[in-house]
Structures are given as C-alpha cells and as structure tokens.
C-alpha cells in the first residue's frame, strides 16, 4: 500500500488486529454481528466458486477480500431502506437479507433467481456499470415524497466512478437533497485496468466535493470502521442531511470473474500484501486477543453457516428450468397482441 492511498482514511482495527481508535469501537454484540456477517459472506463466496467448478453455477464474480466493505455497509440499513448492489456485491445483498437460494439461482441464470422476493427492498444485481446510481436517487426521493424517512444505498467500484451516471447521480442527489448513501468500493481494479490508469485522482472520496456533498474515506478491510462511517451517513440521510459518498479502500484479491485470468495483467505481489490485511482474520485476531472469540465459537459458527448454505443450495436445486414460452412473460403487465401471438408461436413450436 502506497502512502497517498492511506491519506485521510479512517481505520479503527488495523491490519494486525490492533485497535487504533478505541473510542470508536462498538459493543461486543455489534462486533459479533459484524464478524458473523463477514464469515457468512466469505463462506458463500468460497462455495460459489466450487459450485461453478462443479457446473452447478454459471459465471460468478467473486468478492472475497471485500467482505468488510460489503457487510459493514449493508448492516447499517434496515429493511425499510433500499439496497442497490452491482454484480460483485453478492456479499452486501446476502447480508441485507436476499435469500442465499435466490442468489444461487440468480447466478444459475434461472428466472426464479430473478424473481425478487416480495417486500424486500433490494434490487437485482446491476450489470451495466453505474446505472444503479441514478436509480438510488429516485428511490430515495420516492421514499421522501411518500412521507417515509428511508434511505437508498447504492454500490459502485473505482471503474464505475468514471461513468457519467456516477457523476450525474451525485450531482442530482446533492441538488435535490436525496437521502442516499453512495458506496464506492475502490478495489484497485476494473477487470484489467488499475485505478492508477483509470484516473489521476488518488482520493476518490474527494469527488464528492465537486457536488457539494460529504465524502468519507475509510479502510475498506476494517469492518468496524466501514460500519461506523456508514451508520453516520445513513443517520445523516435519514435526518434530512442529504447524501454522502463513502470510499472504501480495499482490494480485489480474486479474479474479475471465475473465467478471468489475472496473470494476464498483474503480478500477485500486491495481492499477497493485501492478503495480509484480510478483513476476516483482522477482526478475528482482535476479538480473540480480547477473549471475545475462541475456536469453539468459530467451529459453531462454521457449522451454522455451512448448514444454512447447503440447505439453500438444496432449495435452489428444487426449482425447475424455465420453459420456452416464459421468454415472453413479464414484458408488460398485460401482454400486447404481438406478445400474445409470439407466446402462442412458442407454445406451438416447443409445446411448453
């Protein structure tokens, strides 16, 4: 890690598991909740890669190493708030409450994975980069217009912050005072392009200044710090204080997707350095050192999340494959005559 990248960055628990800001450490219950969320997310990520190798899941973009950044932010929301994840934010979505079986089905490209659960205010993973940012502004304003004090939280990466939608959304949110929290996960890479080639800017949180809104920079591998700044931003938005941009400084230690080969564009020296700053190990060291965690508790947690995951995969396995005629379902609330005709054609040709 080079020095400028650490500028103005809040850390509470450092890479060695030591505490540098005791005044900002939350209670034990919160710490346990944060740790559990990261372990649960990591378990999913590791198992997802295995499922892919077994041919039981499609292309998958892993987020391992970014658990603090994703779980720490998502845990600052209630289920009345909106969550807008990108394709790499499976960890945020499952922490927020998207069922694991649903996520498995999504990455299996099953329509059952697309059918988002009723009542849950999480939008499906965004593929076109940065397009979710203006949506977050709209969701947030819609909540205010309907007299509710709920917020919208949207994710993006360092690459995504080059897109126009990112800048338009920050400007709209500022101008219209939208209760939004914009999470920019700076993980160093946009597929093969490093952040240093993406932009001359070093501190991406400072982009907020251009739009007159607060920008915060936080150690993205320290879930305690991530959660702290996110809670502040959520509370500010909820109280009518407007939007915040949070830059979580982290690293994509994994490939872009399971079909990517990072050897084509980077050496793994830096990856090894970042593995030393691992967010899960870091918090576990902190907790263990203070007698708040031990092997027995770790084993129990592992059993719990393994069981949960395996049950979710079994549930996902029970869903059937779509039929050809489902292709033209759900285009409009009421199908047009053209779609009705096309559906009949599919039924005639494929019988289903």
């Amino acid at each position, binding site marked *: 890690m080079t020095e400028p990248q650490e500028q103005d960055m809040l850390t509470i628990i450092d890479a060695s598991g030591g505490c540098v800001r005791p005044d900002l450490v939350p209670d034990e219950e919160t710490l346990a909740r944060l740790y559990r969320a990261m372990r649960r997310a990591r378990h999913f990520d590791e198992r997802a890669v295995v499922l892919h190798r077994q041919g039981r899941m499609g292309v998958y973009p892993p987020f391992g190493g970014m658990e603090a950044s994703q779980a720490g932010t998502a845990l600052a929301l209630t289920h009345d708030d909106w969550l807008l994840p990108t394709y790499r934010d499976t960890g945020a979505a499952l922490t927020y409450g998207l069922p694991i079986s649903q996520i498995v089905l999504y990455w299996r490209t099953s329509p059952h994975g697309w059918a988002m659960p009723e009542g849950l205010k999480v939008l499906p993973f965004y593929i076109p980069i940065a397009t979710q940012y203006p949506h977050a502004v709209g969701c947030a304003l819609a909540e205010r217009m309907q007299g509710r004090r709920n917020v919208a939280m949207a994710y993006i990466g360092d690459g995504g912050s080059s897109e126009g939608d990112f800048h*338009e959304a920050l400007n709209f949110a500022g101008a219209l005072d939208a209760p939004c929290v914009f999470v920019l996960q700076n993980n160093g890479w946009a597929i093969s392009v490093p952040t240093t080639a993406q932009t001359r800017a070093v501190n991406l949180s400072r982009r907020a200044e251009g739009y007159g809104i607060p920008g915060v920079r936080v150690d993205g591998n320290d879930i305690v710090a991530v959660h702290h700044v996110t809670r502040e931003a959520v509370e500010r938005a909820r109280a009518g204080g407007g939007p915040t941009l949070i830059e979580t400084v982290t690293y994509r230690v994994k490939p872009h997707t399971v079909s990517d080969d990072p050897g084509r564009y980077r050496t793994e020296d830096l990856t090894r350095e970042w593995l030393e700053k691992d967010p899960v190990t870091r918090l576990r060291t902190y907790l263990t050192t203070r007698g708040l965690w031990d092997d027995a508790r770790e084993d129990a947690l592992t059993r719990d999340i393994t069981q949960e995951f395996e049950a979710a995969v079994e549930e996902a396995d029970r869903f059937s494959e779509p039929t050809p005629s489902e292709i033209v379902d759900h285009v409009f609330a009421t199908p047009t005559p053209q779609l009705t005709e096309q559906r009949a054609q599919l039924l005639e040709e494929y019988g289903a």
Partner: protein
Amino acid sequence: MTATEVRTGTGTRTMTMVAAINDALAVALERDAKVCLFGEDVGVMGGVFRATDGLQARFGRERVFDTPLAEAGIVGMGIGMGLAGMRPVAEIQFAGFLYPALDQILSHLGRYRHRTRGRFSVPMVIRAPYGGGVHTPEQHADSPEAVLAHVPGVKVVIPSSPTDAKGLLLAAIEDPDPVFFFESIKLYRSTKEEVPEGHYTVPLGKARLVREGDDVTVVCYGGMVEVCTKAADAARAHGIGVEVVDLRTLVPMDTETVLASVRKTGRVVIVTEAPRTGGFHNEIAALVAERALDSLLAPVVRVTGFDAPYPPFTSVEDTYRPNATRVAKAIKQVLDY
C-alpha cells in the same frame, strides 16, 4: 393554463394540443398523489413549450420540479422513483436530446418487469416534443420513435389531436409500464378543438380512422396525420376515397385496424417524417406483406424523410418533411399501378 384556452361551456373547452397536455397533467396530479413531474425548466418556467405551465404553482415544488441538466440522470432517477412506488412523468426538452438517456432506457426502463419476473416495474412516462415543421434550430426536430419502438418493454404513443393527446396521456400515466409520449412540435398550437373537461382516457393500442374511404389506405401517426388528412380531402374532391389510419400508438400497434383497412382498399401508403431505413413504417409494410399480400392491388409505397439528418436549413426543411403534395403523389402512384 395558457392564454389560448377559451371556456365554451360545460363539458368541453377549446384547447390547443399543448393546452390539452397541460390539462391532462393537471388532472393526473389532482387524481393521484403519486404522480410527479420533472425535467429541465418544467418548474417555474413551465417548460420551453409551456406544457407544464402553472403546475408548480398549483401542485408545489415537491411534485413539479426542475432537475439538473442531464437526461440520463432524469430518466435514471425516474426509473428509481417508479421502482419505489411513484408515477413519475419526465419531460425531455426535445426528442433529439434524449440520447444520453439511451443506456438507462435500453438497459433498464423496459427490462425491469422482465428481469424481476414481475416483482418490480416502472410505471413511468417520458414526454418529449418531436419532429419538424416549425423551423427549429439544428437537432431540435428529430423523430426517434423507431429507436424506442425497438426496445422491448416500453410503449410508444404519438398523438395527433388535442382530444387524443389528453386522453392518451392520461392512459399513459395510468399504465403500469413505461410509456414514451412523443408530441409533435408542429401540432402543439396549429389546431384547436373542443376537448372534454376532467378525466377521460383514450386506450393505448387502438388506432383511429380519421377519414374513411374505399380506394387507398394511408397509415400515419403524430405530425403526419394533419398532412395525410389534407391529401385525403384533396383526393376526395376528385372522387378518390382515401382511408386515413392514425396509429396513435406504435407499441402496442393496432394491427387489426391496419389490416382491415388494407383488405378493404387493396392499396397502402405509409407516411412518416422519420428517416427511411429501419423506421417503424417498415414494420407496417412487413405486417401488410405477411398478412394481407393477397389483398394488395399495388406495391406498398412509403413516404418518409430521407436517410440524412433532419436538415436545419429553413428553405429545404419542407422538402425533407413529407407534405400533402408528396402524399397525393403516392396515392396516385398506388392507384395508377
């Protein structure tokens, strides 16, 4: 309310198309607290064509408001509002300024219901003035309706009269899916008619027979309806019966009305001011070829703009945009075949 409106008694009022649009928006805001209007200059100023005139003063700054100048942001924000329970109505200042928002439109607007298998949808209306005929500056007269009609999951409406404009706009706002509503700049103030007061809707997907006739079918929509009606009336004076079909909505298209007319007349002319290649008029030609070939007495003739950008050169603008003379020639061509 604009100065062009005159109250003529109970039940109806004389309105231009822009006044009818303003009235539809007022009715929608009055009836449903979830309806909100936004865009560039729509608030205090009431829009560059005054379509939202007086609405901010009447309904407040939270429901009728100006946005920053960024079309992708306007459409993207509207999508979010629609997802979260509102009925957003966005104004894009000119159809030719819509293009920065195409990513949002193609990637999300028409896709949300499908990609969430019905869990989320975007009941949003995007209004935009379109087309030529009033000597606007460069890039203010585009007709991009075919681009939108090609996007799955969005409807496309183009009214041609004040009464239709009001009823179709209310139907569009009440529709549970995204609707593009293109308003011919030429028609905004060119005609007035008696428009019903209060609430009514004109259903999407139903064409209108503007003129009935047995000899030639002319299919058109929006700004071209005025032109085609003029040509039809001139032909009538020579004993030729021209049936003018105003599509009103491109998506969904009323194929039955088009086919019924073509089967009756056996001759069809399709008129649009959009460029020729890849336009929506070709969809109508394909429909006729697939479903009414046996009825045809002459090849289909298209009267369109040209495969060149809309010319901002005042002296030739009316050559690019089809006029009654060109439509009359096409009518003669299918009759003489």
